[in-house]
């Protein structure tokens, strides 16, 4: 598989205008971030910090107000069609189409990129089998459990073997055991496919457990910390968790992160 292009976020700013009051709301103040090919990055932040806006901007469904997101030499919003089959998403809820069977749901992105029917079936089937759903390919979503539905959603995302995988609170609504199991599966598959993966979460354990890096967003997606988890011994994960928690609560980097050698967040470029 080819190496996915790097992701460069430069001076990203996103404003929304409230429909009722007409007031402007700053969802993302100014964000600079670089994600290397095949990196697994977990983005953590409190509710309403701009994580989901960043997710929509990454998908390309929203245009930046200022600044840019570049994937290689293309932008996900400006070159929307270029990324068909190259970016795949897993959402908080499974978002399966209720009228399609598990197999047909997993086939959906393959149908959209127009590959032959036989290959669609073969690829979707193989991903469903790998995710333990070989006996449920003809089941409709309402016949599956929450965990099984999320597995179908993961199969749907991996079926196109995307360069970039985006997951927005993908395991947050599942019970702990199922979530941990799916998280591991997701990570293993992402590494195997060689995809760059960006996981948005509010769960610190999930972020530390999954990401090569943990990026901490403050209010309006202010970059508070950029932590390379691999450099940390597992014995210090509890301390790291506490420091991130404190960072999120105070909306400024916790001194312990600096002491422990965390790469400081870039200063704003004005």
């Amino acid at each position, binding site marked *: 598989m080819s190496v996915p292009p790097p992701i460069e976020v430069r001076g990203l700013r996103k404003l929304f205008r409230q429909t009722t009051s007409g007031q402007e709301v700053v969802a993302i103040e100014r964000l600079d971030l670089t994600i290397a090919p095949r990196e697994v990055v977990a983005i953590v932040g409190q509710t309403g910090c701009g994580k989901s806006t960043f997710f929509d901007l990454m998908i390309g*469904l929203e245009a930046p107000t200022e600044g840019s997101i570049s994937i290689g030499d293309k932008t996900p919003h400006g070159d929307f069609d270029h990324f*068909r089959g190259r970016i795949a*998403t897993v*959402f908080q809820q499974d978002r399966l*189409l209720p009228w399609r069977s598990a197999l047909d749901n997993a086939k959906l992105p393959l*149908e*959209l990129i127009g590959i032959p029917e036989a290959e669609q079936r073969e690829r979707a089937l193989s991903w469903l089998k790998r995710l333990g759903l070989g006996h449920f390919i003809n089941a409709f979503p*309402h016949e599956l459990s929450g965990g099984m539905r999320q597995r179908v959603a993961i199969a749907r995302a991996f079926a196109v073997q995307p360069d970039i995988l985006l997951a927005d609170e993908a395991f947050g609504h599942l019970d702990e055991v199922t979530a941990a199991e799916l998280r591991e599966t997701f990570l293993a598959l992402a590494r195997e496919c060689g995809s760059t993966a960006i996981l948005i979460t509010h769960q610190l354990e999930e972020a530390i457990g999954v990401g090569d890096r943990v990026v901490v967003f403050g209010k309006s997606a202010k970059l508070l910390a950029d932590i390379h988890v691999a450099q940390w011994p597992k014995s210090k994960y509890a301390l790291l968790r506490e420091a991130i928690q404190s960072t999120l609560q105070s909306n400024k980097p916790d001194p312990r992160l600096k002491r422990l050698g965390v790469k400081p967040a870039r200063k704003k470029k004005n």
Partner: protein
Amino acid sequence: MPHEELGASAPGLKFPRQTFISLLVFAIAWQALSYLAPSLGIPPFAVPSLVRIAKSIGTITPIDIAVTLARVIGALIASFLLGLALAMAMYNSETLEKYLHPIIRLFMAVPVVSWILFAVLWFPGVEFRIGFVLVVVCGPVFLVDTLDAMRSVPRELRHMMQSFRPTTLQYFIKLMLPAIVPTIFTSWKVNISLAIRVVTIAELVGAVTGIGHQLSVAQELFSVSDVFAWTIVLVALLFLLEAIVSRVETRLLRWRI
């Protein structure tokens, strides 16, 4: 088992015991009234016996049934396609929706009889008149239902679909159309009933064929049994069409809980 469950198990085609009994009681009461009519001062022809009605049913001309059925089905298909196309255009263009919405409301407010009179005054051809009335009455119902259904497609599903970057055509074929199918079936059932009633009035006024025309002939001949016979045919036609739609609905929407 509760009554609802019995009905729900095979919509449209079951003939539950309760229905059979209520119809039987009604038939017995009718026969009794027919028998007692002269002694109650009611002219015998006004309440024909079941035997007389059965004889009238025996004289029914299938060609008139076929003509009415063809008019109803043809007009419903044309109305559906027109309603669907306009709904898709209005869903995609807010400006178009703002301009068309008042006209649709106006069309829906005009009584059916007025449309029939307009058709008689404006158009020379009988078939075109009937088709026009049916489309102008049923089309807006399809349009409004379809547009509402499109707007009700969950934002989460639309967002998911868009994230996979479909073309506009793929977006409609893979997401919007399947999502609105349940509403389309409901709309068809409503419109079948509406179309049967409208086509009867339209044929009554301006046609020389069809069930409406035969009802008009029966009325001129003071043949109440013939009126009953044709009415029974109309009701049976309505039930048959509804049963067919329900059967297709059950088959296509088996994914529903």
